């Protein structure tokens, strides 16, 4: 994969070497240059010294001897043997530290341009390179294959001294960097290095300091994990495996006799260190939701988390502070994709992100979040400094900016006792400038690394690197130029979250469709503290209550969608036939506009399901559409957990390479095998617990397995099965299989031929969640009839109508109405299909699904009867708060338009560069069934 060998002299390499030789200083690239190097004994006299430790000394002297700082101050005597540098007009700073980089590492450990942004892409298939031809990476069939996992690689062992970029960064004042491999899910461990040395090993200051985790295999594997869902499950499983490994070995070492030895695993060895808090675990997170995921993942597996990326850190500074998680902030501020259509409309969400990302550092300072800067693949150091200036323009003090480039990274990496400030005894890493470091006109005059002096060669200002597709040299001239506006962020229209929150609301004089207690004409509803407090015709309005005139309007319970893929960054972990280890909760995306659009359709609760690519899919997440909340805030509190199963065509469709099953026989076999394994897993644990209970200390516990663990919950009735299905025969087979293992299917999803076996479904006690009138899009949907919902209802099945679509979710009331036309359901029965019945199916009917005292005040107000196609949702309430209001929506439109125009104006002319928008699906997947 190495396209340009680093051992091969490139023209820029030659230039660098010659330039360095020319000024007769030590050159890292050529041992012969050593002879020209003076002794490491310098004194800079009469300079302005910014110590970085809180004080600035004007007209001070700093002495560097044998690689260390031996004196700093105003009244320092210059030693006789020192080479004296007159510091008049110069400023001395601590050498800058790049908090995260791949400097000095071979191309084989780096990722090409497209895969670089943390949190971008879904791993597995997303990597791109190396996927064609005979050179395919290995196919992974599960966590046990350890895909793209090489944590044993230590940056310190891989350094290449002849990397010409080292000089480039030194020239800009960077004397140290934390370098770590970046390719793969567990690419390796990082080392803090100085950016000069005779031999690679001279450069290492400390190692290992951090174990990197990414969310993309970067093309280093295929198969599992194939989506972001699997990536999180995989990361967790590997850490759980490491904990088990650690435990198993210590039990074994205690008394090996009579015990089979645990299997050596080089991938897990370094993770033991991480678990024992001997090094950081770096987890990526650019957007706020990704940062939260990183924090949660780190806590779940029990490691010390260091987040990197953090462009939307401004939104989660309090969370980071609360969890005491330090951050490496990428200085590669978001910007427009160079390859984008110049006329394409960019979303306000993206523009706001671009505008506010540079406020993150100042927000972190205020919130007390520890952070350091890193260059994140920027190839021109000048761009790095320009981008620091943007942070300063957005409220960061120069002192704090300097700190984020010096002492703060030193503290984070545990080397503050030797780096990060100009103090006696510390390593002599020093940068000397002709002015203020953050002044655009300032030039670096000389740099000291380990007390060696380097003069600055201005011809080398850009890193020339191979393997960085799309970011070649030719662009670099521009990179240092226009980097985007320096000024503070523009004000934001408040367009998310509850509208005018109030504790008490009364809806008056409306037609109330209670669903459980008939229709109340001219009725009122009193809402207090999120609950329905009273329903009836004579309700006194408490003082201070918000009053909503419902004259001529219809109030229904909030619509519930029993099958949605809303608000998720990934849907299908289809790389394996059983993906019970993955969960939608890991990838919830509260920023998806589809949430708001569904709210505008009166929807208040949705069952967010894994896709149907495999017989056993992933865990679901039941959410309330609390637009504006973060991912945990979306979750329906205490909703019973569930899992997606799938039968039929989607699961057995051809896949590359062949994936079992390919028939309905195989589908059932996969499910049966999975439960047999889960039963075995359960009994292994029971056996272990018994053995422990009987006093046996020397037993190695079974390995915790997220897949089996989930299925054991199904066996024990603690997790609901939602089974995607079409044909009558497959429905029947799964019923019988569940009965064989002693659990009940909670719902059949889609279940288009459910009407043929409605009797059996009803007897089993399963629910059915179907489409209104879709058919003939595939063979197993050819016998679908629009009477399905009505006919199953008639035969005693609890039926709901679901959307499975970001579009259809917006008019589920109309879809329910179709069951009146086809099959003759009554109005009440029809309305139940999208309110009470899905609530019953999800076991949340004690909280939602009807308008009853004590239930959550999740309501939709319609302009006409909701079963009329002409009905429009006017307001939607969740927990008694107004989350959608048609009037409010209209009133905001102009302001949002103006904000967007202002943002576009402010950011126009910025250099177009690589992808900065996230890969969010907009919830608009149409009819993927």
């Amino acid at each position, binding site marked *: 994969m190495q396209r340009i060998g680093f051992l091969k002299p490139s023209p820029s390499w030659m230039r660098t070497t010659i330039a360095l030789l020319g000024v007769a200083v030590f050159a890292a690239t050529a041992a012969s240059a050593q002879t020209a190097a003076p002794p490491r004994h310098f004194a800079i006299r009469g300079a302005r010294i910014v110590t970085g430790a809180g004080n600035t000394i004007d007209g001070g002297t700093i002495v560097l001897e044998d690689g260390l700082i031996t004196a700093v101050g105003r009244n320092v005597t210059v030693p006789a043997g020192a080479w004296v540098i007159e510091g008049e007009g110069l400023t001395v700073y601590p050498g800058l530290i790049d908090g995260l980089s791949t400097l000095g590492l071979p191309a084989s450990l780096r990722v090409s341009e*497209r895969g670089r942004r943390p949190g971008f892409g879904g791993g597995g*298939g*997303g990597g*791109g390179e190396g996927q064609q031809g005979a050179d395919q990476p290995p196919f992974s069939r599960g966590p046990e294959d350890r895909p793209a996992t090489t944590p044993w690689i230590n940056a310190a062992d891989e350094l290449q001294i002849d990397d010409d970029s080292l000089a480039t960064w030194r020239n800009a004042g960077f004397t140290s960097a934390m370098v770590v491999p970046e390719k793969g899910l567990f690419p390796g461990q990082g080392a803090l290095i100085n950016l000069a040395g005779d031999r690679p090993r001279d450069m290492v200051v400390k190692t290992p300091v951090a174990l990197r985790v990414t969310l993309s295999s970067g093309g280093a594997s295929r198969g599992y994990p194939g989506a972001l869902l699997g990536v999180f499950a995989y990361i967790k499983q590997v850490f759980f495996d490491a904990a088990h490994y650690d435990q198993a070995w210590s039990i074994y070492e205690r008394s090996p006799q009579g015990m089979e030895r645990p299997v050596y695993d080089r991938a897990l060895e370094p993770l033991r260190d991480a678990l024992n808090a001997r090094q950081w675990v770096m987890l990526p997170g650019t957007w706020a939701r990704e940062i939260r995921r990183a924090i949660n993942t780190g806590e779940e597996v029990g490691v010390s988390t260091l987040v990197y990326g953090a462009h939307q850190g401004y939104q989660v500074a309090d969370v980071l502070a609360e969890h005491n998680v330090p951050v490496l902030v990428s200085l590669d501020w978001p910007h427009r*994709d*160079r*390859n*984008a*259509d*110049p*006329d394409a*409309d960019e*979303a*306000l969400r993206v523009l706001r992100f671009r505008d506010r990302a540079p406020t993150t550092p100042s927000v972190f300072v205020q919130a007390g979040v520890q952070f350091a800067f890193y260059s994140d693949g920027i190839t021109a150091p000048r761009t790095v400094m320009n981008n620091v200036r943007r942070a300063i323009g957005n409220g960061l003090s120069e002192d704090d900016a300097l700190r984020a480039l010096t002492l703060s990274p030193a503290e984070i990496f545990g080397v503050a006792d030797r780096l990060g400030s100009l103090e006696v005894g510390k390593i002599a890493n020093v940068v000397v400038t002709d002015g203020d470091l953050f002044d655009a006109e300032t030039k670096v005059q000389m740099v000291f690394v380990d007390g060696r002096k380097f003069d600055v060669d201005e011809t080398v200002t850009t890193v020339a690197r191979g393997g960085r597709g799309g970011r070649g040299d030719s662009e670099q001239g521009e990179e240092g130029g226009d980097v985007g506006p320096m000024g503070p962020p523009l004000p934001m229209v408040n367009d998310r979250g509850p509208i005018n929150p109030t504790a008490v609301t009364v809806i008056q004089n409306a037609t109330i469709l209670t669903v459980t207690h008939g229709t109340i004409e001219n009725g009122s509803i009193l809402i207090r503290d999120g609950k329905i407090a009273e329903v009836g015709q004579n309700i006194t309005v408490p003082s201070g209550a918000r009053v909503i005139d419902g004259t001529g309007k219809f109030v229904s319970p909030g619509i519930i969608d029993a099958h949605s893929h809303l608000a998720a960054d990934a849907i299908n972990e289809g790389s394996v036939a059983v993906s019970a280890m993955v969960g939608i909760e890991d990838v919830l995306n509260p920023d998806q*506009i589809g949430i*708001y*659009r569904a709210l*505008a359709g009166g929807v208040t609760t949705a069952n967010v399901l894994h896709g149907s690519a495999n017989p056993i899919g992933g865990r679901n997440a039941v959410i309330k559409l609390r637009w504006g909340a973060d991912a945990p805030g979306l979750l329906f509190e205490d909703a019973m957990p569930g899992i997606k199963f799938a039968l039929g*065509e989607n699961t057995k469709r051809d896949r590359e390479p062949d994936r079992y099953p390919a028939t309905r026989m195989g589908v059932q076999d996969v499910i049966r095998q999975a439960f047999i394994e889960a039963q075995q897993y359960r009994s292994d644990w029971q056996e272990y617990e018994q053995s422990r209970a009987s006093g046996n200390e020397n037993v190695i516990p079974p390995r915790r397995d997220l897949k089996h663990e989930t299925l054991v919950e199904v066996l024990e009735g603690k997790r609901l099965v939602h089974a995607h299905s079409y044909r009558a025969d497959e429905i029947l087979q799964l019923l019988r299989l569940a009965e064989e293992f002693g659990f009940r299917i909670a719902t059949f999803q889609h279940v288009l031929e459910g*009407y*043929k076996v409605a009797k059996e479904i009803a007897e089993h006690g399963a629910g059915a969640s179907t489409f209104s*009138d*879709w*058919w*003939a*899009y*595939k*063979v197993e*949907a*050819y*016998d679908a*009839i629009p*009477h399905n919902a009505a*006919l199953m209802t*008639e035969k005693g099945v609890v039926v709901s109508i679901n959307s499975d679509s970001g*579009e*259809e979710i*917006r*008019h589920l009331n*109309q879809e329910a*109405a*179709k069951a*009146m*036309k*086809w*099959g003759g359901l009554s109005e009440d029965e029809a309305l139940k299909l999208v309110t009470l019945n899905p609530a019953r199916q999800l076991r949340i009917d004690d909280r939602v699904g009807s308008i009853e005292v004590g239930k959550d005040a999740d309501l939709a107000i319609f*302009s006409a009867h909701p*079963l009329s*196609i*002409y009905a*429009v949702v006017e307001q939607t309430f969740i927990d008694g708060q107004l989350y959608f209001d048609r009037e409010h*929506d209209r009133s905001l*439109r102009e302001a*949002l338009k103006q904000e*967007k125009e202002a943002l576009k104006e402010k950011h126009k002319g910025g250099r177009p560069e690589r*992808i900065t928008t996230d*890969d969010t*699906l*907009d919830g608009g997947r*149409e009819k993927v069934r």
Partner: protein
Amino acid sequence: MRTNRLSGCLGVLCLLVASPGWAQGGAQVYAIRGGTIYTVSGDPIESGTVLIQGGLITAVGANVSVPAGAVVYEAAGLQVYPGLFDAMSRLGLTEIGQVTVTSDMNELGEYNPHLLAATAIHPASEIIPVTRANGITHAVAAPTGGSGGIGGQGSLIHLDGWTVEEMLIEPSVGMVLNWPSLGGGRGFRRRGPPRPFAERKERHDKQVAQLESWLEASRHYARAMASGSPPRRDLRLEALGRVASGELPFLVMANSDREITEALEFAERNNVRIIIAGGREAWKVADLLAEKQVPVILGATQALPSGEDDGYDQAYANPGQLYEAGVKFGFATFGASNSRTLPYEAAMAVPYGLPWEEALKAVTINSAEILGVGDRLGTIETGKIANVIVTTGDPLNIQTEVRFVFVNGQPIDLQNKHQSLYEKYRARR
């Protein structure tokens, strides 16, 4: 729905139904009596009567007397409308979406102006009876084709007939041109980075230039054919010549405002007639469309807004905005199995700014006029083809039932695959 049919002839001598005239329709007169007639061409007629004979509407009015021997359909308390028109569909061209061998709508090759949908229409498709049971009586079946290419010609058909010859109303109503896209160009499931814009633009421009050179070639061909020494016959150029001469319009599949604008400029530059098909962002260029008097066959109203920052209801509001601007449009499903949901696409626009009467026109007369058959279809008027439906109410509302359907002057058995399966499994004990 068989019961409905029976109830329809309860009031008359059912024996007549069995007469030879039934099969041919020739002399048999059918009378729809006593319903409210929404002619679309004028005000509704209370307690009116529609007479049908020989495939045509022969009389409409409040004071029409029913001739002896007519089969009478009692419509008291019911409403009578022109049959609904799905202005662009895949009816008869596909049966099961994911089974490509059941699909005859997308031929290989970029430029297929000479291909005709009617050639491949499958009269026995199970989808057709399901569709007409909800009041859709005629539709354009159109081929698809790839971006930047010409997919073939769309055929206007009745949704009834033993053979395609019996179904055909107009073999060709326009030629499908998929406007060259400048879109994202990302691969399957949006994996991988988008192709650079410059690359996409280059390809797009080349495609537009190709289309222009095809048109030029067809004009040259026509001139050569008219000359003393005609060249070898070229079916593609011959077919395209009908568009070049203005005889047939291009049905230009275009959704974004940029695509639509480009198509309008293209039409002007090359002096061809176009109808925009799709039109998701037509609202952005509504004034331009009105000014150029170019009509639109609209796709789904029940759709997501195209831009993240567009109003949540933008797709619902699109038809109303076009109406306000004076753009002529009709609705289409661009599908087959979902063709029966056509009335709901129209209804959805009503609370968002489209008057109900206009919504009704957009599934009846507008599409007929846009496609050049307004003199034969789209209203209940004497002399028009008798595609008529009788309903329990507003045909755009969901709960409304369709009681009687006449296609090409024939009463239609409303039984279909869905109804049969329903009855069969409902009886399961």
